[in-house]
């Protein structure tokens, strides 16, 4: 493991933030010392660096948490370790998970494992790149608006977001609390499912977790007979990348071959998901990120002596300087937008309308699943992985990379991306979306579909 991490460190992928041989040996010793080997005995995992661990620093890809070490472990880390899994490394991410390309990390951008000029997607780009490069079989990411499914699609791996409430968020650094979900990458559906199964379940330390029967082992059914797959027309626009469309068409044909009934459906409000998300997520982020002020943890950025006299050198100056220097440009933009949409006179116009739109987006899904649809199938992203720098100049263009993944996040639904083929050498992902807590159905279908697809073959 150490030699693989060393090798990937030299490759320029820039996917890892913290790992050490000593920590790896301690993890291995811990797994070996278990009386009965757990279901993930000895499985090394990449952990997105916004999930807290006591052994490594947790930076969230930000200067404002440089050198910070959490005094406690996330619930998911405790559960995975109890099952024998090992934390292999902390992985790079967009600062505070805000981004769609992993270009917004204070520790440099992550490269796409197949093409160094391209992005791996984001914000969980480090874990995605490490799984895709074969360094680890699975990894943890987090989703607020698609930050696991989108990079899974770009990197040609499996990415699963559970239902909101299925997995504890205790120890996941908060960004948008009504949206945040610990999520998982795997090279195969079975790998991702086995990690998710261990992580899931009620946690007294996260009041949003829901008491549901545990997820059992995922077994692929013999066919998709009796299954109805809905294709929402809004997710197949005329300007969809032809390679992405061809990949999705292949997967749809395979589902038909397997006996599924495939029907067209409409989710008319899904088109509002990105603007809705970019009101709700920044509003929640502005509140959640208020805690980073240089008073209790993290570095304290002082003003220069010259300007200290002008600005008073007081407590508020400490807050402003620490936050002004500690946060990167995308995080600053979102804090400002969040503060703007919540400020007096604008709250109803933006936040109120976004909440109403969120309800409409959610009820579209409820209606579709209530009409006999078992699962929805869509492209995960409108294009394959784009080039680094292509969208950094225009925040809205970057946001639109999440157009097909945002709606399920706002509705709190389980959703996943599986590789369906390649176009011009780049992976294409297809997305399955299920009704709340129907992960088992979604994963079983994906496990069968996965066997019928050739993820490394060119689609046409």
């Amino acid at each position, binding site marked *: 493991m150490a030699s693989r991490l060393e090798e990937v460190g030299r490759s320029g992928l820039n996917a890892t933030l913290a790992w050490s041989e000593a920590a790896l040996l301690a993890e291995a010793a811990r797994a070996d010392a278990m009386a009965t080997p757990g279901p993930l005995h000895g499985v090394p995992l990449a952990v997105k660096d916004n999930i807290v661990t006591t052994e490594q620093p947790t930076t969230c890809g930000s200067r404002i948490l440089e050198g910070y070490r959490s005094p406690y472990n996330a619930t998911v880390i405790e559960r995975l370790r109890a099952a024998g899994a090992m934390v292999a490394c902390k992985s790079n991410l967009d600062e505070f998970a805000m981004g769609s390309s992993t270009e917004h990390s204070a520790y440099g951008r992550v490269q796409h494992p197949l093409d160094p000029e391209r992005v791996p997607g984001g914000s969980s780009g480090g874990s995605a790149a490490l799984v895709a490069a074969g360094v680890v079989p699975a990894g943890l990411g987090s989703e607020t608006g698609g930050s696991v499914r989108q990079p899974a699609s770009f990197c040609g791996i499996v990415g699963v977001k559970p239902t909101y409430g299925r997995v504890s968020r205790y120890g996941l650094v908060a960004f948008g609390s009504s949206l945040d979900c610990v999520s998982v990458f795997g090279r195969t559906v079975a790998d991702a499912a086995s990690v998710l199964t261990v992580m899931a379940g009620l946690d007294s330390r996260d009041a949003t977790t829901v008491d549901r029967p545990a997820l059992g082992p995922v077994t692929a059914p013999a066919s998709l007979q009796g299954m109805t797959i809905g294709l929402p027309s809004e997710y197949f626009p005329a300007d969809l990348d032809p390679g992405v469309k061809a990949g999705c068409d292949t997967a749809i044909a395979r589902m038909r071959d397997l006996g599924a009934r495939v029907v067209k459906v409409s989710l008319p409000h899904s088109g509002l998901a990105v603007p809705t998300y970019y009101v709700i997520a920044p509003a929640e982020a502005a509140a959640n990120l208020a805690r980073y002020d240089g008073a209790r943890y993290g570095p*304290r950025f002082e003003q220069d002596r010259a300007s200290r006299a002008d600005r008073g*050198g007081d407590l508020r100056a400490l807050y402003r300087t620490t936050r002004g220097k500690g946060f990167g440009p995308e995080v600053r*933009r979102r804090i*400002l937008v969040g503060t703007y949409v919540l400020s007096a006179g604008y709250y109803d116009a933006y936040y109120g309308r976004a909440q109403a739109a969120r309800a409409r987006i959610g009820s579209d899904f409820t209606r579709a699943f209530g009409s006999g649809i078992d699962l929805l199938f869509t492209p995960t992203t409108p294009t394959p992985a784009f080039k680094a720098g292509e969208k950094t100049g225009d925040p809205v263009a970057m946001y639109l990379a999440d157009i097909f993944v945002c709606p399920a996040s706002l509705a709190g639904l389980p959703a996943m991306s599986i590789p369906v083929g390649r176009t011009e050498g780049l992976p294409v992902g297809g997305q399955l979306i299920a009704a709340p807590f129907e992960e088992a159905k979604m994963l079983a279908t994906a496990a069968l579909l996965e066997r019928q697809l050739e993820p490394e073959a060119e689609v046409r």
Partner: protein
Amino acid sequence: MSVTAKDVEHVARLAELAVEPGELPELTAQMDRIVGFVAQLGADRADEADEAVVERYVPGPEATPLREDVVRPADLAFPPAAIAPEFVEGFFVVPKLGPMEES
């Protein structure tokens, strides 16, 4: 809808975020682009003006269960003093609060 430099300075003050004067023009342009983009949600409401007020939508459990109000040990690997920028005799040390300013 257009965001002005004055608006950006105002929300930056509310958010306790230092913005250097040199950053202001680009930040204003980007904020204007983002706020202009999300403003399309207003159009959505106009289309459906007759619809009954939609209930706020938050996924997750039906109701947040009440928990017993008991003190539980925090079980920390190391104390706050180990991560605080400045910590003396059980207190986080910060500069004094300066004179209040207009906002």
